[in-house]
């Protein structure tokens, strides 16, 4: 996939994501827009049939569903059920019914341990495959994450790549206001023995370069910190904490669609 093709797919997927959230009157759109570029690229370009994606930041479920839709792994009919009664597409993933949604996540700090377990299981069973796990920057304040990073490094889980959606905003403040000692994130990973790359999470070239690099080997564990913008691509949402929560009204939705490049 080249740059232009990806951008076309990204625009189409972003519009579908906005529509999905508008129809459901759902929140969390800000963190979905910060994560979408990476989640989509993983699904359309990076991952092979043996690979897994674990969404540790479960509140970006919309980005996962839209990416699965973009790759034909979720149907339009399934997507229309998002957050409705009887749907399997809750606002946080409910796992086990679809190969692209292996785990129920949403309580932060779980996905990375689950992903580490899958990576360890595949190694023990000599199965191929690579596990990609997307986390949020605020999520890293959960102590269990650091249990998992220690565990993954200790057991040489080089078939695991962690991506951190570092949009700098969390539930009730900025990361530097709530947990400044966590910053810079890269140093923390380095201190735990991980190899770290920091990239622009909205740049196809950066993401492609980081993800196309062969997965770790020889016990090297790898983290990619994605410098992102919450609400990316929609001017009134960008870098605004309230878009962690708010649903869009009609006017906001129409403006968002226009800015992303669709017809309102």
């Amino acid at each position: 996939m080249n740059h232009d093709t990806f951008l076309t797919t990204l625009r189409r997927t972003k519009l579908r994501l906005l529509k999905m959230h508008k129809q459901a009157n759902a929140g969390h759109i800000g963190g979905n827009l910060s994560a979408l570029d990476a989640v989509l690229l993983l699904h359309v370009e990076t991952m092979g049939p043996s690979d897994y994606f674990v969404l540790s930041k479960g509140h970006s479920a919309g980005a996962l569903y839209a990416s699965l839709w973009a790759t034909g792994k979720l149907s339009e009919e399934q997507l229309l059920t998002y957050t409705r009664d009887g749907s399997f597409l809750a606002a946080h993933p409910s796992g086990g019914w679809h190969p692209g949604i292996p785990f129920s996540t949403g309580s932060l700090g779980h996905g990375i341990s689950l992903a580490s377990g899958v990576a360890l299981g595949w190694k023990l069973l000599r199965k191929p495959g690579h596990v990609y796990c997307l986390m949020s920057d605020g999520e890293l304040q959960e102590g269990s994450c650091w249990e998992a990073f220690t565990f993954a490094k200790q057991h040489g889980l080089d078939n695991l790549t962690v991506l951190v959606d570092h949009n700098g905003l969390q539930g009730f403040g900025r990361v530097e206001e709530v947990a400044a000692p966590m910053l810079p994130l890269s140093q923390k990973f380095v201190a735990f023995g991980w190899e770290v790359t920091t990239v622009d999470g909205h740049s196809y070239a950066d993401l492609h370069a980081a993800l196309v690099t062969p997965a770790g080997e020889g016990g090297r564990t790898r983290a990619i910190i994605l410098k992102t913008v919450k609400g990316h691509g929609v001017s009134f949402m960008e870098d605004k904490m309230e878009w962690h929560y708010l649903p869009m009204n009609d006017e906001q939705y129409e403006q968002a669609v226009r800015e992303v490049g669709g017809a309102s």
Partner: protein
Amino acid sequence: MRNALCDTLISLYKQNRFLFMTGDLGFMALEPLRAIMGGDFVNAGVAEQNMVSAAAGVAHTGLQTWVYSIAPFAYARPFEQIRNDVCLHDLDVKIVGNGGGYAYGYMGATHHAIEDYGVMAALQNMICHIPAFAGDVLPIARRMQQTPGPAYLRLGRHEMPVEAVLPDYAPWRELLSGESGNIVVVGPVVGQVYQAVQSVMAKKGGSFGLWVLTELPVPEIPQGLRESIVQHPEKPLIIVEEHVAHGGVGMAICHLLAKLGASPRNFRHLHAAGYLKGSGYGTQQFHRKQSGIDAESVELLLGGLV
């Protein structure tokens, strides 16, 4: 029972591969298992939350995984990980908690597990096993291995007198039959109750039906016991468990009996009292005494019923 578990898991591993994870515990107990299992024995470190979630991830790949720690560190610290990652996904993870009830005694309240199986049994897909005797460990562990899905195993100490005749393992077992009342006991504390019954019978006569239960959710009450309770509601029914009342077997049996329309008129529930203010801490027997579930306290109660 910890040594029995080690021998059992060595035997089971030779038949079917699984992964064993410990939260940095097992000194002078699990070394033989580690030697046999090699890379399938993982010390996950002092990090129980990650251990349980990682176990769920491994189980997701198709490899059954056992996790082990002191009981409260196995079920309470990683509760959300058990709930979300193991039980919601119905994954084949076996949680082993050593030292059920007050077994860790003077090590302190942080090391006790007196609300474990009530909490675990509340979780979807979870089956709890509370072996009463060392000989239960093998059949229970074999059953856990052969039954996919989450399970919790509460280990304690074998406390039965050597002369006691123990029937083969079953979730419900009748140890003694009798007419003066029925007693249902959960786990190793049955050793205390057995002594009490024998002493009362020797001193005062009478006889009690003594049943031991080792599984939750509580399986259907055996016919003989059920009929005795339903047909003779005047007979005492006594439940004894080293677990708090809430979520315990006493409440579960009341629920089952209510559904049957049975209403025993002389119902006693002897259970862990927790920690009495100002009373301090001590051995397992100290806390049992405070709770009225030691042999002497049970004997006093039974003596008044004969």
